[in-house]
């Protein structure tokens, strides 16, 4: 009796979960399969697979020739990776200083650095734009990198310092006895120690940077410095009628994220769940 009741509950649960899975995946699948179809097939048979007569690469051709997607992609990649590097490095340095050493103003500085989590950086855009203009950094990837680094530092510092506080100081003391300078201790002992949380920080930082529309639009809308997100948005704006191209553009935008995600999904999820536990 219990067994069948469990079976029923289990089926019910899976039904709900599968329903949401379909809801989550369906739009993506639809876009992907239709990006490879002829215009006739897109409209005639929206749900069908792109086989035989329906298959067409015209959409992708137009995307890759009429726009600078490789450039946009490399811009996004550069901005995201470099920002991430600085966030991780400077964030770990600051977190180390705050959690390891006793000095006047320690609590104050850590509060100051962490308050940024609750304060959205966008609110200062007006002054930020003025500053970027004054520094002569409009339409540069540098401007984006600086802004994203500033945006990502608070949560990185928070997560790193929480983690470092729980690490025993004995291994650092041992290195001191061995004669290492504080700098070497940071790079050779502390940094390897924070590896478990780097994934968490990376996840929390990378997604908002890659997907951001606001700052590329405002700070670096120029052709040379466009990111993928902005590029897709502009492209779609221009080509709204050409469905094949539009669908192909969307697929091109999705593809790298999809691929990266499938490869790294386990670490990503683990990173989020461990990090979120502390929060």
């Amino acid at each position, binding site marked *: 009796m219990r067994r069948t009741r469990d079976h029923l509950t289990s089926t019910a649960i899976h039904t709900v979960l599968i329903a949401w899975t379909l809801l989550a995946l369906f739009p993506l699948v639809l876009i992907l399969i239709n990006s490879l179809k002829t215009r006739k097939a897109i409209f005639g048979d929206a749900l069908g697979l792109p086989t035989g007569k329906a298959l067409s690469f015209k959409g992708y051709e137009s995307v890759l020739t009429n726009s600078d997607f490789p450039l946009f992609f490399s811009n996004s990649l550069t901005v995201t990776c470099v920002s991430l590097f600085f966030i991780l490095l400077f964030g770990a340095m600051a977190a180390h200083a705050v959690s390891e050493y006793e000095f006047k103003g320690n609590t104050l500085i850590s509060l100051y650095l962490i308050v940024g989590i609750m304060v959205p950086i966008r609110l200062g855009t007006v002054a930020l734009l003025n500053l970027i203009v004054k520094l002569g950094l409009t339409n540069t990837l540098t401007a984006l990198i600086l802004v994203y680094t500033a945006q990502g530092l608070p949560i990185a510092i928070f997560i790193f310092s929480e983690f470092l506080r729980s690490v*025993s100081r*004995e*291994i650092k*003391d*041992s290195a*001191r*006895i*061995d*004669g*290492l300078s504080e700098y070497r201790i940071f790079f050779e*002992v502390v940094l*390897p*120690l924070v590896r478990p949380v780097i994934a968490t920080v990376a996840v929390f930082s990378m997604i908002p940077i890659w997907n951001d529309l606001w700052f590329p639009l405002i700070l670096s809308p120029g052709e040379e410095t466009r990111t993928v997100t902005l590029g897709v948005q502009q492209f779609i704006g221009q080509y709204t009628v050409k469905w094949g191209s539009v669908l192909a553009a969307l697929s091109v935008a999705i593809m790298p994220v999809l691929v990266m995600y499938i490869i790294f999904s386990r670490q990503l999820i683990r990173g989020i769940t461990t990090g979120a536990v502390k929060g």
Partner: protein
Amino acid sequence: MATLALKSVKKAFGDTTVIQNMELTVENGELIVFVGPSGCGKSTLLRMIAGLETLTAGEIHIDGERIDHQPPSNRGIAMVFQSYALYPHKNVRGNLGFSLKHAGVDKTEIDKRVNVAADILGLQDLMDRKPRELSGGQRQRVAIGRAIVREPKVFLFDEPLSNLDAALRVHMRVEILKLHQRLKNTMVYVTHDQVEAMTLADRIVVFRHGAVEQVGTPLELYRHPANRFVAGFIGSPAMNFLKAHCGSGHVTLNETVFCSRQHTDGDVTLGIRPEHLKVDVHGQLHGEVQVFEHLGGEAFVHLTLDDGQTLVAKLDGEHHLRPGERCVLGIDPRKCHVFDSTGLRICTD
């Protein structure tokens, strides 16, 4: 091989004094144990000797040379930590040789010292393993090996066995003792476990609240504790403390007079170790058995005396008592201790 001298060493964090005016001389080749409850300052003192904490006042000398202004790597010390503190990304060989490599020592010399340490500690088969592939006991041996390789003047141990399970702890204790016999180095060993202190030490320093309660050999501390704290800290199970009264040269417990000393009158505390109590029909302590623990070779009886006080007695395994039974215990007057109202021991016989 070196002497260690602490002169008027004091340590304060802001307004809180953690170490009070410490004077101590550790002889060449001595294994001295700092023991005391948590927070008594023993670890802080060890870290000050190592150079990981600064001194608020005083001096520390190793082999007559003042070292308290030197960084840790220049003091001629090596330290073994409670959590082993091995570098997780290096293998055993790398961990052992790390400090020498960093100091720029010649490669042949490094290999020689590393192999010697590996030999002493039986690590030869583990040289290529990373710390995460080692058991707790193996990691501890690597930590000790790392200290040996530095060929220090003084070894420092900071509760090295606390993270091991009970059986392993007993085993490693013997290993450390053998190590000391072999290397004959001066060693300072910190622990909160009085069994470790008693078995390892040439001399014990008992700490409480940053001050030294007593310094002496294990036997001295056992037989002639300076005060109630040391008496209760050393020895397991702990000494029994009973309220008693001293008047006209007699120490009395309720109405029962049992030992005569010559002292000031007043309320006193009588200390008797569980192992010094015997079942004796003519004994002075009458009471009812509360709990009886039989361990095979020995037994512990928890007694509630007629005046309400409780005590524990250690008897041999031949005894069998049951809760609720009446029991009479006797004491050897030469084996008991009397403490005045401040806790100070007041008699020698």
